[in-house]
């Protein structure tokens, strides 16, 4: 049974083999984009648009889910009960963000199980940043400040993405991310005002997370073949380099409040281009990590797979219970 076969015929989804584009559908799609309006799940859309969105949204969801691991790593060792509670709330938020995004991707016709399977089979990508290890408590600070900060820069424009469910999911995500960034900054601020060793720990964390967080914005514009199309479709609103430059401009000021430094002597404001510039980034490293050869790729996937498999009995038990209850209810009615 499909979800809607019982409803009026007009509600049925159009079968996938209907390759022929309905009259005026393409024009209507383009008109909606030209008006900067939104595309909704039941609207006709080009296959390439749908595929791009499924890829982007599911990768984003996977990143949130995998992103729980580097931080969960520190819950038991967080320095106080309050810090533990904060970190747990944050990890819980990451799970929530993953679920909002999976839901948005599902409206494009890709089942949740398919996405989960692709992730644990190692077929799907997720943000390269989560394949770096979290070596000290200060890393919780640096991740919040730099990684979540970069994510916010990237994600705020996505609230206006042309695909309605994606934009709405991002509104919710962004509201919650700002807590993540601030708590991270405060961890660093506290360490920066602590003992010499604590200061050193904070600086070391910044040194290690700076470049990977800049690379979160994706490859440079001249090496980002999909960006142009995504911008034409109003999915992306700014280029990778534009967003990266904006982010550098923010953290170069924020780091002064910490009294620490960024590990990059080349940061400067280019008056002609009206843009912040930074030193060279190691794009080979980026590609290696994306290709699965980062420091923690194998560990992250193994952990995810293990969690999924260990949870199987819970899912089965819940489904069996639901079936039993439903059957009991049926007999009662009959």
């Amino acid at each position, binding site marked *: 049974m499909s979800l809607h076969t019982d409803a009026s015929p007009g509600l049925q989804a159009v*079968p996938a083999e209907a390759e022929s584009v309905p009259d005026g559908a393409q024009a209507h799609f383009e008109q909606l984009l030209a008006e900067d309006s939104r595309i909704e799940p039941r609207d006709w859309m080009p296959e390439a648009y749908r595929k791009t969105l499924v890829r982007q949204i599911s990768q984003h969801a996977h990143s949130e889910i995998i992103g729980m691991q580097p931080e969960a790593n520190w819950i038991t060792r967080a320095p106080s009960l309050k810090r533990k509670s904060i970190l747990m709330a944050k990890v819980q938020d990451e799970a929530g963000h993953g679920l909002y995004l999976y839901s948005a991707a*599902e409206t494009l016709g890709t089942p949740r199980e398919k996405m989960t399977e692709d992730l644990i089979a190692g077929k799907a990508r997720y943000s390269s940043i989560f394949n770096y290890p979290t070596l000290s408590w200060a890393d919780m600070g640096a991740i919040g400040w730099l990684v979540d900060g970069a994510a916010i820069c990237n994600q705020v424009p996505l609230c206006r993405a042309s695909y309605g469910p994606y934009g709405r999911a991002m509104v919710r995500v962004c509201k919650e991310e700002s807590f993540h960034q601030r708590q991270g900054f405060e961890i660093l601020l506290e360490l920066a005002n602590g003992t010499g060793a604590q200061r050193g720990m904070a600086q070391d964390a910044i040194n290690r997370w700076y470049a990977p967080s800049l690379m979160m914005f994706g490859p440079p514009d001249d090496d980002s073949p999909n960006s142009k199309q995504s911008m034409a479709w109003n999915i992306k609103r700014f280029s990778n380099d534009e967003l990266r430059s904006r982010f550098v401009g923010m953290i170069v000021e924020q780091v002064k409040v910490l009294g620490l430094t960024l590990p990059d002597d080349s940061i400067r404001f280019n008056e002609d281009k009206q843009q912040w510039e930074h030193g060279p980034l190691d794009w080979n490293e980026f590609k290696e990590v994306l290709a699965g050869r980062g420091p923690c790729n194998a560990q992250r996937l193994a952990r995810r797979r293990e969690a999924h498999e260990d949870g199987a009995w819970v899912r089965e038990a819940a489904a069996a219970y639901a079936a039993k209850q439903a059957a009991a209810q049926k007999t009662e009615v009959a």
Partner: protein
Amino acid sequence: MVSGSTTGDDGSKPAGTQTSAEPETAAGAAALGSAWPLWEVFVRSSRGLSHVHAGSLHAPDAQMAVRNARDLYTRRNEGVSLWVVPASAIVASDPDAKGQFFESPQGKDYRHATYYTKSEGVKHL
């Protein structure tokens, strides 16, 4: 959270996708042993306001759907009441026919107060 729904507003399948063997009820899902059904979640953010669509989630039954909805959509006091509705129970208007379907109010400006301009300047009207 007052607004900002997450998923498809009508809980329906997107156009251009195959509706595969999808269980209609929780019991059906259990029989298949795999996918839990989809639920649409509505949140009342405070007394005096109506429930607003917040997003969707998967759960084996109604009770779990409400619990999951609490954990997923009200982690920050966003709500004082929750509704969960099986996505399969939602009947939606046909987006392709929205032209004709919503045609009736077109050209009927006289249904709005702003249509009546001669009384401009008259107080308390």
